[in-house]
């Protein structure tokens, strides 16, 4: 259950709008149901009273929206702990003006995954309320179904890497700690496979890709003005994969491109309409970077140099990495 309430966030926004600290607010807007929340820009407390929502379905990360936002004065943005890592990473890359943003850190008790809920409760879910450790799922045909909240959190929240905010102007509630996360367990399982098994795993997953580019377009690390895959002059533009090679190429190139910059926010897997576990590609890179260069968390500090764009005498020799891969390289 979230410790900071919707009312507290509206009051905070109203205070900052009133005293002129900010002119607008990035916040989550309620939809038709409790779980179809849309990121939106609010301009007054009255607008927020009407439509603002803060519940277990506010997974959308606002950091990337700061790049596009060009309004007058400062914008208020609410950041969950994981969002603050993307925020810092984008600052490191000089993608938005820190002076134009007022960041309020808010604690997060994890976000629920509506897909998991619908798999359990069936279709026809008209709303979901949180009551303590339980989710009360309202359905069209089966009445109310009570689920254990912890079981229906998004994967990224079940293995949450940090409840600690690494960036904010002001913090609401208590700050948490960096967690001893189990987020690499699934990667370890993939590593334990033979090369053929692993190839088959990714072939199967990526064969479902429809090249909607949602993973790229939502990714805070994918902030190029013009993506090479969307540029007709690049020679490699493709709007659809014509074969299994192209299915893999887009995702693997993208994973390489964000390696060392990906904070593991998990938005890619959240938005994939085909339910491809894309975050596992990025986590493999993070795990390898940790192993080869020492632990590194993108976005933990503004201005940190990622191992892949830095050089130290202690850097691993490329040949060692190949040796480590062995027969699976």
């Amino acid at each position, binding site marked *: 259950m979230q410790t900071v309430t919707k009312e507290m966030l509206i009051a905070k926004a109203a205070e900052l709008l009133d005293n002129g600290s900010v002119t607008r607010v990035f916040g989550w807007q309620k939809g038709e149901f409790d779980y179809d929340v849309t990121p939106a820009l609010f301009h007054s407390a009255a607008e927020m009273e009407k439509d603002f929502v803060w519940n277990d379905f506010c997974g959308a990360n606002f950091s990337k929206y700061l790049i596009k936002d060009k309004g007058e004065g400062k914008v208020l943005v609410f950041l969950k702990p994981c969002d603050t890592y993307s925020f810092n990473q984008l600052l490191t890359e000089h993608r938005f003006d820190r002076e134009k943003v007022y960041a309020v850190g808010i604690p997060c008790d994890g976000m629920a995954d509506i897909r998991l809920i619908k798999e359990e409760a069936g279709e026809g879910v008209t709303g979901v309320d949180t009551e303590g450790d339980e989710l009360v799922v309202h359905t069209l045909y089966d009445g109310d179904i009570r689920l254990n909240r912890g079981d229906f959190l998004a994967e990224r929240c079940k293995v949450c890497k940090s409840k600690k905010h690494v960036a904010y102007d002001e913090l609401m509630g208590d700050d948490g700690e960096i967690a001893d996360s189990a987020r690499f367990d699934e990667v370890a399982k993939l590593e334990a496979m033979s090369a053929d098994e692993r190839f088959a795993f990714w072939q199967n997953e990526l064969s479902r890709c429809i090249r909607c580019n949602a993973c790229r377009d939502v990714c805070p690390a994918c902030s190029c003005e013009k993506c090479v895959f969307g540029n007709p002059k690049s020679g490699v533009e493709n709007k659809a994969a014509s074969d299994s090679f192209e299915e893999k190429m887009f995702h693997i190139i993208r994973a390489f491109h964000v390696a060392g910059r990906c904070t593991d926010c998990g938005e890619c897997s959240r*938005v994939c309409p085909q339910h491809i576990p894309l975050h596992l590609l990025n986590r493999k890179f993070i795990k390898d970077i940790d192993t080869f260069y020492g632990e590194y968390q993108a976005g933990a500090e503004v201005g940190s140099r990622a191992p892949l764009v830095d050089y130290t005498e202690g850097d691993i020799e490329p040949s060692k990495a190949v040796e480590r891969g062995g027969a699976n390289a």
Partner: protein
Amino acid sequence: MRKCVLADKNALLAAMAAVSRLYVPVDGADKQAVFSEWKDGAVLSGKLNTNRSAKDFFFPQTENMMTFKMSGKKLEIFDTRREHEDFILFGVRACDVRSFTVLDNVFLSEPVDTYYANRRAHGTVVSLACNKPAETCFCRTFDIDAADPEGDVVCWEDSENIYLTAKTEKGEKLLAALENVTEACGDDAADGVKTLVNERLGKLPLAELKADKFGGGKTDAFFNDPAWDSLSEACIGCGTCTFVCSTCQCYDIKDFDTGHGIHRFRCWDSCMYSDFTMMAHGTNRPNHMQRFRQRFMHKLVYYPENNNGLFSCVGCGRCLSRCPISMNIVKVMKTLGGKEDA
């Protein structure tokens, strides 16, 4: 009308598969429903609808249209089309059946898209009434009847039987081939299911959504509405809505030099993409709001204007549950259509 007891559904499907290749919705590895070739004993998906729409069968995401080869000054053109074999799609929902009509209006009007026509001519559509419509459904908004779908053959299921009736010549041919596994029944046999479905449709959260403020001739009423700015603000510009949509029909054609000849390749395109309909002078929708507006104006105004008032949204709800930011046609219709002067 004919019927078959549910216990014999596998035999019914086997009889269909004996007629031609049969595709049915089954749960894939990701627990989402997907049309797959029927295999004996296949467990059909309990999901209301498939993750991807059924349009893939007639308008696939990618296809090679032809191949060219140059040798000296000689140019050879190879037609890569093959006569499609007959196939049956079982379990198509009313919304998706209507989407075929929307696509037919585009691809079967002159000049006919022979690639599409080839597949369409060989496909038999067996539809299935929606016993449990979902919270994201709004087919009634567009006068689609999930209790009594269109299709070559229409099916209803209750707790005991599956009822079948033919609506077209193709459908009659298929039903005739199923005589050994079905028995005749009264035309009112499925009325109980129809009543139940109608009751449920009436109670859906989006049951009151109306499209009557939209349609042909409404370009001026909506084109310059300031609400497009706020509606499109959060859109990340991906193509999810267009690619899961059962009626989106835009495509791109490009020639690729493979080094061993040139492939003329066609694939789905999305009006959300920045290079959509790029022309020599550039693009006519340079900003994101314009691209966003195009998608909804096309469904709600431009298409009906050119197609006797038929909307090119069928209310299947796929975009509602797939959009990364949960912005969708329902929210657009409520915002624009909810105004007094609309």
